[in-house]
């Protein structure tokens, strides 16, 4: 294996979070972006072809080793932890924020027909959404958007990878 490819593999391995090409480049100063990218692609292919327990995936603007999704039940048994789940209310609020960001609370309340305070707080605490600014209208309400951690948790490369909202097209929004 070429040395820089081995270094990339090791970096991806020691990092608990996705690693961007930019960050790899900061370490591998003399290796070009294209070479880094193609080494990452090769690693992704190798791990894919092996059909082992680990995959290299592109997520949240970077790359991360993750276990294969078919092994989830075994790993739950191994780790002995119950995964933290989001309530239905929090999931709905998260969906509204994800598709309509940047969005203010009053708009979320209107769409869901209920007050979203509790779910907003829990999503903020879990770092799935973040405060992205204020809207330039009287009262300057806070605007919410999804975080990078959201992409990480939902295995999305970026926001364009969100599943499409069929119904919204009908509404002509």
């Amino acid at each position, binding site marked *: 294996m070429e040395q820089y490819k081995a270094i990339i593999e090791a970096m991806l*391995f*020691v*990092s*608990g*979070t996705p690693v961007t090409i930019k960050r790899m480049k900061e370490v591998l100063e003399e290796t070009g972006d294209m070479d880094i990218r193609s080494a990452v692609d090769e690693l992704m292919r190798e791990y894919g072809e092996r059909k082992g327990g680990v995959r290299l*995936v592109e997520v949240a603007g970077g790359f*991360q*080793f*993750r*276990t*294969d*999704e078919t092994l*989830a039940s075994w*790993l739950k048994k191994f*780790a002995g932890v119950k*995964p*933290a*789940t989001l309530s*239905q*209310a929090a*999931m*709905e609020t*998260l*969906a*509204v924020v*994800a*598709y309509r960001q940047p969005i203010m609370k009053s708009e979320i309340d209107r*769409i*869901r*027909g*209920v*007050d979203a305070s509790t779910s907003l707080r829990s999503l*903020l*605490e879990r*770092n799935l959404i*973040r*405060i992205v600014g204020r809207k330039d209208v009287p009262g*300057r309400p806070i605007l919410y958007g999804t*975080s990078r*951690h959201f992409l*990480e*948790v*939902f*295995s*999305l490369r970026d926001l364009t990878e*969100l*599943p499409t*909202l*069929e*119904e*919204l097209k*009908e*509404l002509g*929004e």
Partner: protein
Amino acid sequence: MAESVDYAVKLNVFEGPLDLLLFLIKKNEIDIYDIPIALITEQYMAYVEAMKSLNLDMAGEYLVLASTLVHIKSKMLLPPAEEGEEQEEDPRDELVRQLLEYKAYKEAALNLGMLHLLGRDVFGRDVPHGEITDGGETEFREIGIFELVEVFRKLIVDRGHDELMEIDVEKMSLADRISEIMDELNEKKFLTFEDLMGEAGGRTRVIYTFLAVLELMKLRLVRVYQSVPYGTIRLFAAAGE
């Protein structure tokens, strides 16, 4: 009563009045674009009454939608517009639009839940402590605005610094202007009051500029001089070399 218990169980799973309404539409196999308002209102009211009788902590939103339904129902009872008159809007239109929008996001939430969730379907590596940290500071956290304000709230509320509670946008505007003026004073030897006001822009900004100058004087960060009465007012950084 057995029936009430049944209601109670179901009520707990509704995410709000729109969710309840969607449930009734589905249960009755109704076309969402042509809702029989009388029937749905009746059933909706039955659920709301059940909630009340069980003293469930019912959100006010359920009652708001109840009155909307009654209102639509009464409007539907009015005779249709005469021939030749302008076509009136169906009183149900707004509600249908709202329902469709909510339904879209409810489905979107389901779709999100079907993605490969980290910690549920896929797992990353549990990086041992200290493996890649270079020592020194132990606990690291990702930086975000919410974390910042939450940390501040915990500090002053939980540790009982009541006198520090208030923070408002005005205070932050002032801090912003103070920092801008000090930046400028770092670059120039002095600033005239006219310079500051001239660049100020909008009315609120003029007020904040004035307040910022007063605050800077109080903090003794600037010294303000005027050579003759009604003459040019000059600001100097107090800590200047």
